[in-house]
């Protein structure tokens, strides 16, 4: 095989990308069980306090006293219901308090399986779920409630009760698991007759620590732990890969007389996302991603892929345009690189306003915006106009088509008109220059013949 072989390059990209991702997973302080998280915990133990963005808060953070001897206790009641005490959590740095109550995760497990059904003598069905606090704030009013996420496999008792809950979540939670607005409290096994929640033993790693109470100890031990935390957080191995990737790029160019990106774009290769992140980090350019795999008069198939480095995009014809054909006009809706703004609460379909937190002074007075939940993948594109209140956007009524939560960032969108001339051979492209990151909409207003269609990809 050669480096120009698609199977070979995909495997190489997968291996390089996975290795990069594996190490990078240790550097995120908000990722439970990562080295950065644990060292941060050690640092906080010396200094007192915490600096996480997410996690449960014991009732008395000054003394470190928590309910039930250090645990936030969730107890089972009857018939699929658990009882919980007052619980305080940090969600993205803000504190939420949930009053005591009951919660039922329901009888239906993943895949629609009912735990009340019989699956063989003596083998009661059960499923496992993470119970936690979910942010349901809306229009600036903070609110949270209990919710749960169901695993596609059953936890063993050791897994549920151990302190490896971070790994449990990272490895086995469904892709839709909302890390940005959900703080887990307990792991539960759910049967037809009971919910068996663990005490929040696994939460102990994330709660507030009382300060060590001795200045000398802080003076002696804080600095090296703080430095270690900084070191781990700044671990960034991408530069280690530069020589290897330089050689891959160089060899591809010598073999194909084409740039690496251009060569694989011509093959329409789907690069591994991890590899794309690594490549973008090294060369400040996405190696290549299709943003729309098909655009026709009637429809556009958007990939909703994000470019890992902002840049130009190109509009490409997949078929030859005859010389006499009509000029093609298209409108592309592209996320630009203006600062995104975070929502201040949930928004729901047909809302007429968006409450945001953060400045949008760099945004045009009117235009388009885009919001997408990174977990549920729900999104909407809407037109907006700034109002006199700087925090309020007025969107056209009914333009919000999906519910998204306050963890979602809103992006500014440019509408760009593309005009493609006549007499173009296949794979002719028009480059749209800008700092674009994503294609969120596309319409074709005119095209030369019914069978012609187009794609959009990173340039």
């Amino acid at each position, binding site marked *: *095989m050669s*480096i120009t072989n698609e199977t*070979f390059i995909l*495997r*190489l990209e997968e*291996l*390089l990308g*996975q*290795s990069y991702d*594996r*190490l990078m997973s*240790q550097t995120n302080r908000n990722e439970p*069980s*990562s*080295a*950065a998280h*644990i*060292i941060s*915990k*050690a640092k906080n*133990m*010396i200094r007192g306090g915490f600096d996480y963005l997410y996690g449960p808060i014991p009732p008395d953070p000054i003394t470190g006293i928590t309910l039930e001897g250090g645990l936030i206790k969730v107890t089972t009641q009857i018939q699929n219901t658990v009882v919980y005490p007052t619980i305080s959590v940090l969600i993205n740095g803000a504190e939420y308090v949930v009053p005591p109550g009951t919660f039922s995760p329901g009888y239906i*497990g*993943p*895949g629609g*399986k009912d735990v009340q059904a019989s*699956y*063989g003598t*003596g083998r009661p*069905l*059960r*499923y496992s779920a993470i119970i936690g606090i979910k942010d349901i704030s809306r229009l600036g009013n903070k609110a949270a409630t209990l919710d749960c996420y169901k695993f*596609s*496999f*059953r936890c*063993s008792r050791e*897994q549920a009760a151990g302190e490896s809950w971070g790994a449990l979540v990272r*490895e*086995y939670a469904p892709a839709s698991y909302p890390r940005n607005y959900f703080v887990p409290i307990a792991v539960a096994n759910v049967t037809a007759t009971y919910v068996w929640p663990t005490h929040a033993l696994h939460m102990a790693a994330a709660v507030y620590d009382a300060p*060590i109470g*001795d200045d*000398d*100890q802080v003076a*002696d*031990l804080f*600095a*090296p732990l703080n*430095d*270690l935390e900084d070191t*781990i957080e700044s671990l960034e*191995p991408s530069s*280690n*890969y530069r*020589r*290897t990737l*330089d*050689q*891959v790029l*160089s*060899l591809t160019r010598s073999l194909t007389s084409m740039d690496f990106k251009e060569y694989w774009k011509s093959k329409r290769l789907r690069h591994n996302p991890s590899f794309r992140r690594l490549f973008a980090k090294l060369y400040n350019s996405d190696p290549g991603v299709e943003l729309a795999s098909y655009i026709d008069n009637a429809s556009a198939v958007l990939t909703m892929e994000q470019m890992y480095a902002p840049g130009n995009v190109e509009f490409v014809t997949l078929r030859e345009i005859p010389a006499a054909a009509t000029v093609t006009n298209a409108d592309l809706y592209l996320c630009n690189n203006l600062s995104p703004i975070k929502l201040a609460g949930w928004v729901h379909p047909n809302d007429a306003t968006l409450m945001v937190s953060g400045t949008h002074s760099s945004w045009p007075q009117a235009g388009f915006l885009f919001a997408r939940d990174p977990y549920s993948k729900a999104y909407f594109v809407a037109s907006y106009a700034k109002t006199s209140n700087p925090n309020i956007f007025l969107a056209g009524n009914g333009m919000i088509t999906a519910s998204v939560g306050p963890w979602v960032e809103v992006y500014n969108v440019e509408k760009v008109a593309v005009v493609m001339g006549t007499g173009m051979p296949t794979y002719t492209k028009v480059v749209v220059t800008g700092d674009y990151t994503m294609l969120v909409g596309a319409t074709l207003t005119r095209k030369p013949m019914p069978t012609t269609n187009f794609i959009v990809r990173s340039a």
Partner: protein
Amino acid sequence: MPVISPSNLTKLMGLIDRAYQSLMSAHGGLDTPGSYAYRINQAKCLIRGGSDVSVGAIPASAKESYDLPTLTRSSSFVISIPTSVFKYSGIDYLVKATSLDLRASYGGAAGYVRGRDQWMPIYDVLSSNYSPSLSINYLLCGSAEILYYSTQSKKFYLSPQKIEYYPGYVVDLNSPEAYHPYPDVWRAQGVYTPLFRAQVFATNLPTFMPTASFYDNSYGKPPDDDQLVRSVFGAVDDLENSALSENYKNQFKPVFDALRKHVESKGSISFTTYLKDNTACSFSDKMRDLYVSLYGVDLPVIYTTLMSGFEGIDDRPVSKTKGHVELKINSGTFAAGTVSTWLIKGRAKTIGVCDYFDQYSLTMATTAAYTLALFDNASSWPDNGYLAWTDDFAEIVYATYVKLNSTNIAIKTLKNGPYFPVLKPVFSIERSDRYFSNNVGVGSIINLSASPDYIGVFSYYGEGDEFTPPAPLSNVTYVIRSG
């Protein structure tokens, strides 16, 4: 100006330990599938061809095919495995095509997955001796990782390695995640090649799935492109070397330096002694390796206490570096007299003493020594001496041994019924009799070793036939630990 409290020190060391383990697990090495270093090694092997891991599955025709053997299910309970090549300890072996019947009840005995963990000989490399022999011990249902394992006698065994967890009925059995959460303990040992995981019930075999490591460890077909190797290999080889050599000791050293300095200056006591006197000294292997690389000595090890005894009787805690073995009295008074112990000079795991059916033929005081193959290098062991291990019934067995080379020793057992489970530890031991002429009380430390050449203690008062109970210890409580 107090020194850090024992509870805070315990917690802090625990956090540092967990962070280091997490980081090193992600960074990994050739024995950590999926890690940063492991994946880079695979990328290198993709460029160069071949495989660097010492255990794995190889396509039977590696030069012709990149694909691995395909496992198929030929009936409800039977999984067929084609002729394959497996690598053990860096050596390739051809294993003929075979099949494995996983039914819950098979041949009048318990099925593989339901049975005890017994080795099941399937094929000799040269002949094909098929001799099933199973024991009966039922589980309600179970899951197993099916694997090949080899011995130095070059026989191969297809074996179910029962795993304690089994996925639920709701789980998507086609999802790789369903089979993920198992420790890869035996994969690092260089002996096993996991093939697939299976779930077996009384009435059928619902599913089986090739393990991730089956693919991860596979042979990489070299690219038939010299220019690729010439251009890219050097760079990715350097990348791998830097990945494999990194252990983050420079990053963690300032923390340990600060802790040691803090304890020594504020507590006027050595860091090691403070740990030994005030904590359980429970540290991970990885952190102990780190500490050895930083300071040349292991973190302190509590070998045993009178109260706890040896919890895991088939093993003994050992230090990674040699030193004295000491006994500290916690209560009572030790009258003058002799303390006798068997101290550990070396520890190694077995690969297999002999063929499966010969295991029970070893008898007491045999004149013919058996050769015991070791998985670990025993070059630091004395040339001859005493050996100890525990048999399948958790009894301590003693033998004399003569070292043949660094990985093979000849043994003569001193007790009936010895049994050598694969990858279980054996210990090179020496008896130590220490005489003390004065009474000593609470807090006193008695050095049990004449020289700093030991890594642990195998047995002590009241344990083992070869031991004379030392009366002076009968009225004291104590801890035995590294010196």
